């Protein structure tokens, strides 16, 4: 059984979300070193929902499940237009820093870290599920 909590859809929620992740890892006996990448994945997906989910007005639900082998992160955004993050165009990391244009980098980071990234849209609710194998 995992943990679920809803957070106001603004960037100031990030601190409380990070505390939520740390508490979950501690309760499951998972190495706290994994908090860095879990925080990063959640921040990128959460801020993406805050910025781009059309019609979004409700709190965003974050779910955590897992053990010492694998962590599953779920973000659920209620009553929004569809925004399939798995279809975001890949970033060309060979483009020199001085020529980079903003955008897309957050999802690129999620793809680099995650072992799987899935999107589901049903009844105007967006659900993103990420799994990450934990290797100490």
């Amino acid at each position, binding site marked *: 059984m995992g943990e679920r909590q809803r957070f106001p859809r603004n960037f100031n929620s990030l601190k409380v979300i990070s505390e939520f992740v740390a508490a979950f890892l501690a309760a499951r006996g998972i190495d706290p070193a994994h908090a860095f990448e879990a925080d990063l994945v959640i921040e990128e997906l959460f801020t993406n929902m805050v910025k781009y989910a059309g019609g979004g007005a409700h709190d965003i639900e974050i779910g955590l499940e897992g053990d010492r082998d694998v962590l599953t992160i779920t973000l659920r955004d209620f009553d929004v237009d569809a925004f399939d993050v798995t279809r975001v165009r890949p970033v060309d990391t060979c483009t020199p820093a*001085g020529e980079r244009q903003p955008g897309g980098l957050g999802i690129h*980071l999620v793809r680099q870290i995650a072992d799987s990234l899935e999107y589901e849209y049903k009844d105007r609710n967006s659900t993103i599920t990420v799994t990450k194998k934990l290797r100490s």
Partner: protein
Amino acid sequence: MFEIQTGEGGYLKLSGRLDAAESERALTQLNTLSQPITVDCSDLEYISSAGLGILLQTYKRLLGLGHTFKLVNMQPRVRNVFTYAGLDKFLLIE
């Protein structure tokens, strides 16, 4: 909590978590710089794409003014984020 401490000769020290909640305030402070900059990242605990974005923006602005922007003493997990983003190949990181 995120902080930028400024020292002599274009030396900066970043500490804490540079996330989306802190990036706008950080950019305002970085935008006041117009000289070659060395950024000590030893106490930078966390960075996201929002943080990368403002450092990249500052690098591009200073480059346009003919100045360098160097990042030093980065923790491995923070450096990994630069590597994932492909920025380690282009930014000056020591």
